[in-house]
């Protein structure tokens, strides 16, 4: 056995970059102590939106960046999650905590039901089908009387047991921590996924499904797995959001704009990498929230004007996303 081979085997499988770990530790601590510096309601709302969209963009990243499928209708899992937990609370009084898991179950089932026929589609055909699915869900929910049709569901207000009913009226701080925990859990899970056998196989499928098949990877099975994982990550965000605003309707919960924003965030940040979605969120969501305040009225669309320009610029100049600005040394050749 020659020297080079021996040395190579002694290298650790994953390069742990102390700088990044320190940064993450620092950020997480910051997040935990943020409410203690007396932030305004708006600032708390902003952070909540950041956590929420960071998770949703990560969910989109799983199918696009880890298995190469581009979905333009990702909002459906958000809507299913939100409607499921709300419906079970409104109709049967079941606590949203359980509702979140029922929502995950339903979203997974939908992911499988949609994913299997979609296996035959690829590229543009797939993307267009997802677009149609998104709109179809909105149409169906707008006319489904069981869950309130176009007027949606109004979640009955409860002041007695906020933690049981997941409703907090006096302060946004509990919402903040709940979203924070889900955010940390989601990112940790995806980080583990990235470094797992499944992560490797998904990336193979993303880069070249035919070659992946020649290496014993059952492409169809893993595509569905990626779809389901993506749904599992996304669904709780819908459930939590429903509890946050307490009124949900099809136009909001199945809004194509959510699909669009999630996609733009992920692409801007950098698809295929665990931290890309977070970077995209940190830049775009504050932009969105602040322009909304600044411009008011029809200014509601100014953030999207800027988004549109930004995404076109990224596609032209930096298609691999903002994450590619980080020098290769810090990312340690994507082994992160």
């Amino acid at each position, binding site marked *: 056995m020659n020297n080079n081979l021996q040395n190579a085997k002694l290298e650790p499988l994953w390069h742990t970059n102390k700088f990044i770990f320190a940064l993450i530790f620092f950020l997480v601590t910051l997040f935990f102590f943020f409410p203690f510096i007396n932030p305004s309601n708006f600032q708390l709302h902003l952070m909540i939106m950041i956590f929420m969209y960071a998770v949703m963009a990560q969910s989109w990243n799983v199918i*696009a960046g880890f298995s190469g499928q*581009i979905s*333009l209708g990702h909002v459906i899992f958000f809507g299913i999650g939100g409607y499921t937990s709300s419906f079970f609370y409104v109709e049967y009084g079941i606590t949203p905590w359980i509702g979140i898991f029922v929502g995950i179950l339903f979203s997974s089932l939908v992911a499988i039901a949609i994913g299997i*026929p979609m296996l*035959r*589609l690829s*590229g*543009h*055909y797939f*993307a*267009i*089908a997802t*677009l*149609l*699915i998104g*709109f*179809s869900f909105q*149409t*169906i929910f*707008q*006319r489904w009387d069981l869950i309130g049709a176009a007027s949606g569901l109004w979640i009955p207000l409860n002041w007695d047991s906020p933690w049981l009913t997941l409703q907090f009226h006096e302060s946004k701080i509990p919402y903040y921590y709940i979203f924070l925990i889900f955010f940390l859990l989601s990112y940790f899970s995806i980080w583990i996924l990235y470094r797992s056998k499944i992560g490797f196989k998904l990336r193979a499928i993303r880069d070249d499904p035919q070659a992946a098949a020649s290496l014993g990877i059952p492409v169809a099975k893993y595509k569905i797995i990626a779809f389901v994982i993506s749904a599992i990550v996304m669904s709780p965000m819908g459930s939590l959001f429903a509890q946050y605003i307490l009124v949900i309707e099809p136009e909001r919960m199945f809004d*194509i704009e959510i699909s*669009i924003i999630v*996609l*733009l965030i992920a*692409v801007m940040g950098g*698809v295929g990498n665990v931290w890309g979605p977070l970077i995209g969120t940190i830049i775009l969501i504050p932009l969105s929230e602040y322009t909304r305040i600044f411009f008011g009225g*029809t*200014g*509601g*669309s*100014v953030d*999207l*004007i800027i*988004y*549109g*320009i*930004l*995404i*076109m610029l*990224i*596609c*032209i100049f930096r*298609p691999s996303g903002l994450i590619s600005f980080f020098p290769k040394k810090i990312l340690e050749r994507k082994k992160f």
Partner: protein
Amino acid sequence: MTIEIIIQAIISGLLMGFIYALIAAGLSLIFGLMGIVNFAHGEHLMLSMFSSFWLWTLLGLDPIISIPITMLILAISGILTHYLLIRYILKAKMIVQICATFGLSVFLRSLAQFLWTPDFRNVANPLLEGRLEIAGIFIGQPQFYASLVCLLSFLLLYLFVNKSETGLALQATAQDRKAAETLGINSNKMFALGWALGLSCVSIAGTMMSNFFFIFPDVGVHFALFAFVAVALGGFGSIIGCLIAGIIIGLVESLGGLLIDPSYKLLYVFLIYLIVVIYRPQGLFGR
């Protein structure tokens, strides 16, 4: 449910079908030429409708008369789109291409919302209004002529692409860019031409539709969806496929709305798309 009502629905479905076909043809042309799906196609339609509206509001030009102007506006828009955006993403991964035109669509739609508010506008008292009666069937005059103009434009487009010298140059570039270049065909100019042509088609449809359709920033979304379905159904790259698919979509929308439920129109079209595309992935006439 008399036979007349059904025939009425078939006719109106057919008429809308020709309009969808022309819009789809623009999309198909661009895709056939450079493999890019223009996700901003609906927004370009919206632009043409707003152009027609403003020309009417500010200059008093009737939509029929402003067709050449809106065609020019959209053609310029197409050329700009190619030279400022598309040119840079021709070799990029599909996800980048999709996001680029998607970004353009978001940009245009939001800009329209910002400049002109989400309010619904319409062109009141255009030259074409009222109803026609043909063999006992009533058809709206604007719809009828819009459809006719779209069909004629479609045929003209088909002739141009297949019989004219420039059209053949376009086809050559579409089939094999490098080979075409060795023949002296400047592919960059061909691409720009493709965009100009494709969007001009859209502008004809949009301008004629401003006679009878409401105009608002999101109006393009619905048509874009149907255009995507039409192109995929007909087969990416096939212009004839657009016509057939456009007609199918128009009929499905109309008859489905009549016989089942008007609020689920999108779903019927979606179902057709799914069925065709799953059992025949390349569409009806696609490569």
